């Protein structure tokens, strides 16, 4: 509607203020949403990276990062359960890393069998067997500075044992505040000092034709001493642990919720102020005989124009901001649907805000037109 567009474009300063308000809200929502999404993704990254169906963990394990040892014989027991076609192993523990310079650093060491899935960072999987160094270690690119491996391969030590930094991988930066190193399960077990009977995570692939839930139930019956979780259950448990039970996760969740609420308030306030700015004109329209629908449509269209312009501007500014943020926060992640959700949320917020301001426009006394 021409009037709606003319109303908001006529006062460019006010329009710009409104659009900036909405874009700030959109920016805030995308940024905080990306922090939360990235945190959730990082909290279950290794679990999601495996393509096995079931995880067997020590009783009470809450997250991949805080595992406990289980008896390695459980792997054989699991393999004997009908419907289990393959098993694998993984482990994770904090270790002491001696850099090429001789300095020491605590690292998160992740070890896994090479059959865990193509997304799981394991040296054996990505290199030919004949090229492998037995002590091969990978690190995430975001930890390059902390690893201090100027040339590759670099000879280092993990828990006092020799290791070779072979190469970088991308996309496995964590939020633990220490570098992550990846190696084969066999190497990791050696570095961590596992005995021959020790294991940490036993992974189970379910054969085609078997229901995962059925196999899970059978495993629970066979292995009552441990937790048997589907991949999705363990991933969810891990995410909930980090988001709900840790202060950091709660802070990010709270910030994301606050980001949404602040966005809602900012958008509501700007849209309401915009409507009140034109309240005399709405009174005139009503005096001239404009129907409630006519007036409401103008307010709603104005709101939607501001929402669309603001959210597009917000998204345009958040793209470079995220690029820089990723340098400091490697795990930040913007899922493809988040910008779309933010645009929809902005439209919804503006519509919601316009409902409040429409009330003001519709209840304005048309008789005020005679007050000069």
């Amino acid at each position, binding site marked *: 509607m021409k009037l709606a567009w003319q109303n908001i474009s006529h006062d460019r300063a006010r329009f710009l203020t409104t659009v900036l308000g909405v874009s700030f809200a959109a920016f805030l929502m995308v940024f905080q949403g990306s922090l939360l999404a990235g945190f959730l993704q990082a909290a279950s990254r290794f679990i999601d990276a495996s393509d096995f169906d079931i995880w067997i963990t020590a009783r009470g394990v809450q997250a991949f990062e805080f595992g406990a040892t289980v008896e390695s014989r459980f792997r054989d027991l699991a393999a004997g359960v009908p419907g289990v076609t393959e098993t694998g192993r993984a482990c994770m523990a904090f270790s002491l890393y001696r850099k090429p310079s001789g300095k020491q650093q605590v690292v998160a060491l992740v070890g896994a069998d090479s059959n865990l899935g193509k997304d799981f960072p394991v040296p054996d999987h990505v290199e030919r067997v004949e090229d492998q160094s037995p002590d091969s270690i990978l690190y995430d690119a975001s930890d390059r500075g902390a690893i201090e491996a100027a040339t590759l391969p670099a000879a280092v030590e993990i828990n006092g044992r020799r290791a070779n930094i072979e190469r970088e991988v991308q996309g496995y930066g964590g939020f633990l505040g220490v570098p992550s190193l990846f190696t084969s399960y066999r190497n990791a077990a050696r570095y961590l000092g596992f005995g021959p009977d020790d294991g940490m995570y036993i992974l189970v692939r379910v054969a085609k034709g078997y229901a995962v839930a059925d196999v899970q139930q059978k495993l629970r019956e066979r292995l009552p001493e441990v937790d048997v979780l589907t991949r999705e259950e363990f991933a969810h448990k891990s995410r909930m642990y980090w988001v709900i039970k840790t202060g950091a996760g709660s802070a990010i969740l709270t910030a994301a919720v606050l980001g949404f609420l602040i966005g809602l308030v900012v958008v509501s306030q700007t849209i309401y102020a915009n409507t009140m700015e034109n309240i005399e004109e709405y009174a005139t329209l009503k005096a001239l005989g404009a129907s409630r629908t006519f007036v409401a449509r103008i307010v709603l269209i104005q709101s939607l124009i501001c929402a669309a312009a603001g959210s597009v501007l917000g998204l345009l500014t958040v793209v470079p901001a995220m690029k820089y943020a990723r340098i400091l926060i490697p795990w930040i992640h913007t899922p493809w649907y988040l910008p779309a959700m933010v645009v929809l949320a902005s439209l919804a917020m503006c519509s919601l805000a316009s409902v409040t301001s429409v009330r003001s426009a519709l209840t304005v006394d*048309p*008789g005020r037109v005679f007050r000069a």
Partner: protein
Amino acid sequence: MLDELLAIKDARISFGKGNAQVHALRGVSASFRRCTLSLVTGPSGSGKTTLLSLLGCLLSPDEGKVFVDGALVNSLSENEKTDLRRRKIGFVFQAFRLLHSLSAIDNVALGLEIRNGKQPDQIAAARDLLGQFGLAEKANHEPNDLSPGEKQRVAVARALAGNPSILLADEPTASLDAAAGKNICQILRNQVEQNGKTVVVVSHDPRWQEYADRTIVLGDGQIKQEEKVAYS
């Protein structure tokens, strides 16, 4: 067809409560015949604008009755009053009340759109209306670029858009210089003479008496004097 297009019977209305209560109208009765220009005058606070608001279905009386083209306004809902205004009444305001973001032609076209819904020829019709008031060349100017006299002519064109039978004007010449004021007086008189409109003007401006068929003088919320003059 009723000869009296507008009528008000023993209307009483007050604003505020307790000691602050103001009795704006105290039992006013008046009727307004078709094809006439009536002037309502009186000192400030005498109830002129309140009377105009009642006639324009913008207010309802506490007591008494208001009729517009035979319809009892008191019994109408807000939506029905809005509909009645849309169909029958055009307004001209002292402060023009043009939409500042729209050009002159868009203001008039908006008046047409409110009355008739969106029509493909409304811009042409608006241009035609502006042309009748000598504003064809200012059609694309925004209100801020127009003189007060031009603004008021645009406002009259908007009020006449959609051809309402009643025109209610509140101090339409108060913000205008002598020449522009006279021009507006003549335009509204012409609407009575040439287009059969029923015009009610509330004004302090004595010039209107030359153009009015009758003058109602209000004072303290009551009709103090009613004078019929033959417009010549």
